[in-house]
């Protein structure tokens, strides 16, 4: 069995049990002999009636025979639930997520509240006092009370609540062992096991699990685990996400942006209104549409802070323009005019028909933490304008077309930059040295050094001519790596996405190589990029060698980087890798 045999710590449950709740809800004092009946059978009764011999399941005639003064009440689950709501509210004051099993029994996960209120005992006492005061406030509530139990798993906790107990963590099985089997509430199973001579939970739990599954199947297996104090069901301690999806069906297909956008406006108000009621904000919204020809389109929009109704309506409108305008219109901005007149040379792909359905699905929903308007240096009108405009371009070109750069660690000019789509969190790809993102002031470039330095030390690894072998040890979160072998500043201003192949030769025309001691075989003399004309190299520096990710056969790279200046004044960063030269960057 793959499930863990020990219950998880998050499984610990507190159960509040109000005995004879239908009688409490009916407003009957515990001293009055009374019973509630459903289908002519006793469902609940007071302690006074129980003393007279009334038990659950008894026929009415027989119950009245045992207790002639019995007050007969009709069983009304609705009334019970309504009355129980005040108890649930009292428990919800301790933790917002309360599970109601049935009127009279509710449960909470104790993991957080128990720590906050100072332990299981303190939590149980506080909740018992709170619930008792609520029950005492009900009509004829005096004399009624509640019981609170805490144990591992809801099943054991209910049994503990019946006895007003707190079961030590990990001892649920021992607690349950002597209890009768009927508590499992599996009548057929209990009956059969009873005939086999198994009458307690402990005896049932002692059976081999494989045999129980083989004989009783999945139902038996679950019951067996519960009898053993292992409750697979754990209370969900998180707030459920309400379904906030809104949609609008068009009676006639909407093929004009105006018509669809009008519907979008009311959808935007709906979705933001229901979010606001829940005290939530939405940072990511999916816009879905269907056309009369069955096409389905979906695009996700993200807001850097939170969507307002106006922002939602605007995004939907832009998106609809992107989808609908493509049918007849061109991709040129209307203000600029289309150079092609009626036949636009820049058509934009779109839908083949009008929209029949528009749906807004809030995706990334979080609590509304409010927003303090900036006094100085905060968000300004210009920021809002930029955010709107860039979101609009994302609608035109796609979410990934507009990016922003984040600097991180690395050696080459491309390694240190990560591009993230606009509006997404700016996280560097690799941790960098402290201050690596703050510009030239913090960039401590090593001073020009002469190659007469023949004995490099570990501290000098950033200087050219020293071989760097990276370590496979990943740095701890607090420690920021310094990336030895990183190229000195200034960095090249043009970094092609794909390095261009090149050739670097010495004075005799032989390709230049780099020795194992990180020395060039011969001084580089001429450079040709992509088979172009040869240019004389008037100055060069390097190599900066790096043996990167040698522990990973797939990503292992050994590179030697050179800075070269050719006779027309241009400077390049050329890289030798596996015997081939490439222009990695241009100092543009």
């Amino acid at each position, binding site marked *: 069995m793959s499930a863990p045999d020990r219950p998880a710590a998050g499984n610990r449950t507190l159960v509040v049990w109000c005995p004879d709740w239908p009688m409490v809800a009916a407003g009957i004092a515990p001293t009055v002999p009374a019973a509630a009946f459903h289908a002519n059978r006793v469902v609940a009764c007071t302690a006074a009636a129980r003393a007279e011999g009334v038990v659950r399941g008894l026929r009415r005639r027989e119950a009245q025979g045992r207790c002639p003064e019995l007050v007969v009440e009709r069983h009304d689950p609705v009334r019970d639930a309504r009355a129980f709501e005040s108890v649930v509210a009292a428990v919800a004051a301790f933790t917002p997520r309360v599970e109601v099993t049935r009127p009279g029994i509710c449960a909470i996960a104790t993991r957080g509240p128990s720590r906050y209120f100072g332990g299981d005992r303190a939590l149980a006492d506080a909740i018992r006092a709170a619930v008792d005061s609520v029950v005492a406030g009900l009509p004829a509530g005096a004399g009624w009370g509640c019981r609170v139990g805490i144990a591992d798993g809801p099943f054991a906790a209910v049994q503990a609540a019946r006895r007003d107990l707190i079961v030590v963590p990990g001892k649920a099985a021992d607690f349950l062992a002597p209890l009768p089997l009927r508590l499992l509430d599996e009548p057929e199973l209990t009956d059969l096991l009873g005939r086999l001579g198994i009458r307690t939970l402990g005896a049932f739990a002692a059976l081999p699990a494989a045999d129980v599954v083989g004989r009783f199947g999945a139902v038996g297996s679950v019951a067996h685990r519960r009898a053993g104090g292992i409750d697979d069901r754990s209370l969900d301690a998180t707030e459920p996400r309400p379904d906030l999806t809104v949609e609008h069906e068009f009676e006639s297909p909407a093929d004009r942006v105006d018509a669809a956008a009008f519907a979008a406006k009311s959808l935007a108000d709906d979705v933001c209104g229901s979010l606001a009621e829940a005290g939530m904000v939405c940072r990511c919204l999916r816009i879905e549409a269907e056309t009369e020809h069955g096409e389905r389109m979906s695009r996700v929009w993200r807001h850097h802070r939170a969507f307002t109704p106006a922002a939602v309506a605007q995004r939907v409108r832009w998106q609809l323009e992107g989808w609908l305008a493509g049918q007849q219109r061109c991709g040129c901005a209307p203000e600029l005019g289309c150079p092609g007149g009626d036949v636009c040379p820049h058509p934009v792909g779109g839908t083949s028909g009008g929209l029949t359905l528009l749906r807004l699905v809030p995706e990334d929903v979080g609590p509304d933490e409010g927003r303090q308007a900036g006094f100085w240096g905060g968000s300004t009108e210009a*920021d809002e304008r930029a955010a709107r*405009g860039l979101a609009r371009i994302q609608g035109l070109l796609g979410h990934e077309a507009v990016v922003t750069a984040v600097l991180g660690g690395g050696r080459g000019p491309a390694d240190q930059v990560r591009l993230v789509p606009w509006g997404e969190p700016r996280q560097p790809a690799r941790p960098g040295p402290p201050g690596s993102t703050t510009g*030239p002031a913090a960039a401590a470039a090593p001073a020009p050094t002469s190659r007469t330095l023949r004995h490099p030390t570990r501290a000098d690894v950033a200087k050219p001519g020293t071989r760097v072998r990276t370590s496979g040890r990943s740095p701890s979160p607090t420690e920021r790596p310094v990336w030895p072998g990183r190229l*000195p*500043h200034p960095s090249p201003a043009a970094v092609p996405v794909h390095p261009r192949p090149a050739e670097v030769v010495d004075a005799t025309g032989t390709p230049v190589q780099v020795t194992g001691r990180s020395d060039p075989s011969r001084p580089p003399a001429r450079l040709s990029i992509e088979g172009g004309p040869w240019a004389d190299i008037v100055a060069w*520096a390097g190599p900066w060698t790096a043996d990167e990710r040698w522990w990973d056969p797939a990503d292992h790279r050994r590179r030697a980087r050179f800075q070269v200046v050719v006779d027309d*004044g241009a400077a390049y960063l050329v890289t030798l890798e596996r015997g081939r030269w490439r222009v990695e960057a241009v100092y543009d």
Partner: protein
Amino acid sequence: MVGEEAVARGRLSALGHLPPPVLAGERVLPVVPALTAVFTRTPGLRRGATVVVDAEHAAPGAVSLALALVAEASAAGSWAAIVGVADLGLLAAAELGVRLERVALIPDVAPAHWVTVVGALLDAVDLVIAHPPPHLRGGDCRRLTARARERGSILIPLRPGRAWADGADLRLTVAGGRWDGVGTGEGHLTSRQLTVTLGGRGAAARPRTVELWLPAPGGGVAAADAFAGADIDRLPVSTPPLQTAG
């Protein structure tokens, strides 16, 4: 009812197209002190201007110059966008002082969308560096220039080729550059002296030449005479006397 609604919405959207009010003191975006020599009339980039950054014979340096132009304004809180420059060295941009979190990059734009995107960006951000696709129409160029003027944003066409042959308020052309700090197998690139020719309209029409350190020793931009007394004998390339900016 729907008709009235449409009219009302039309009016609202017409209101929305009004340019936001701009204070007189904000009409000029700041540039680094070394670049103020480039601008004759204003101490920085005038809002609404079109400033072409080009290079003679594909000489390198235009990208750095364009980045240096926007660096100070970006540090002062202006938003910038860079369109159509797929091979931009962002590390160099950060070293020149550009605040990358305030720069939107649109590296690849289909030629069909280029005008639309640049037009929308002129509405959205203060500074737009844009490398045009080949065969851009003159009419599109004029429309974008007019839009920048109307919206008070600054358009910086980067290496526009034959586009914006006229109509730019200011034209910076890199004539050549010379790198320092690297010898034969020693040192590393540290700084570059860049010769920039200025042209344009109005007071800027008279051609001038300025010399800049871009990047300067230690990073950033500096005027040509900033390192006149520095120990440049160490530099391997013999340095001719520095010209005074005309």
